[in-house]
């Protein structure tokens, strides 16, 4: 069974204090690992897709990296507007059945950036 574990569950940082969020996963034949941002009362907003170990992607203050067992979302010099819940999800190969084309999500990391 595919599993995704995110840590920490919650993180409070001061503005400008860089940190990393972790997403560890167990899936046979990863098709893709996805990062989303979710604000209260809204749907998840797509950030990044990573497909193979060693891949990195950046967007503004965010950088996502991928190894064979985990992914990190690095936040550099965060601002209060970066406060949100960050979700990690994996997609299994199409042949694994049982909704294989859907995503399996972690429970998220609730990030608070204090001014």
């Amino acid at each position, binding site marked *: 069974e595919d599993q995704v574990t995110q840590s920490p569950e919650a993180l409070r940082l001061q503005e400008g204090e860089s940190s990393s969020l972790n997403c560890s996963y167990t899936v046979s034949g990863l*098709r*893709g690992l*996805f990062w*989303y941002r979710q604000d209260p*009362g*809204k*749907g*998840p*907003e*797509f950030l990044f*897709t990573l*497909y193979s170990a060693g891949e990195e992607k950046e967007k503004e203050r965010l950088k996502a990296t991928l190894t064979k067992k985990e992914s990190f979302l690095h936040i550099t010099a965060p601002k209060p507007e970066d406060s949100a819940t960050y*979700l990690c*999800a994996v*997609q299994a190969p*199409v042949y694994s059945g*049982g*909704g294989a*084309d*859907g*995503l*399996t*999500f*972690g*429970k*998220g990391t609730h990030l608070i950036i204090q001014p």
Partner: protein
Amino acid sequence: DAGITQSPRHKVTETGTPVTLRCHQTENHRYMYWYRQDPGHGLRLIHYSYGVKDTDKGEVSDGYSVSRSKTEDFLLTLESATSSQTSVYFCAISSATPWTGGTDNEQFFGPGTRLTVL
């Protein structure tokens, strides 16, 4: 924003009544999905569709049915709502196709429907 709308946005209903949630997209994407989000569980896949009249079950499909008669609409039905189905429901779409190399699998989510079953 991806062209996804969900209706209704909020609904309160009573146990045992039927409920239908609608997802409408303007992107002409092949894949559509229904997820539910509950505290302590994260997002879980209910059903998905890979084309008109082509649907399959996800992780938590019991008590739910879906239909897709047009590319743009994906309906989720609770035949007889129960309190355990109180949740926030999200629709998602993807431009992925069975013939791509798997580099366009991103799913884009709608704004959600908050359903309360009393």
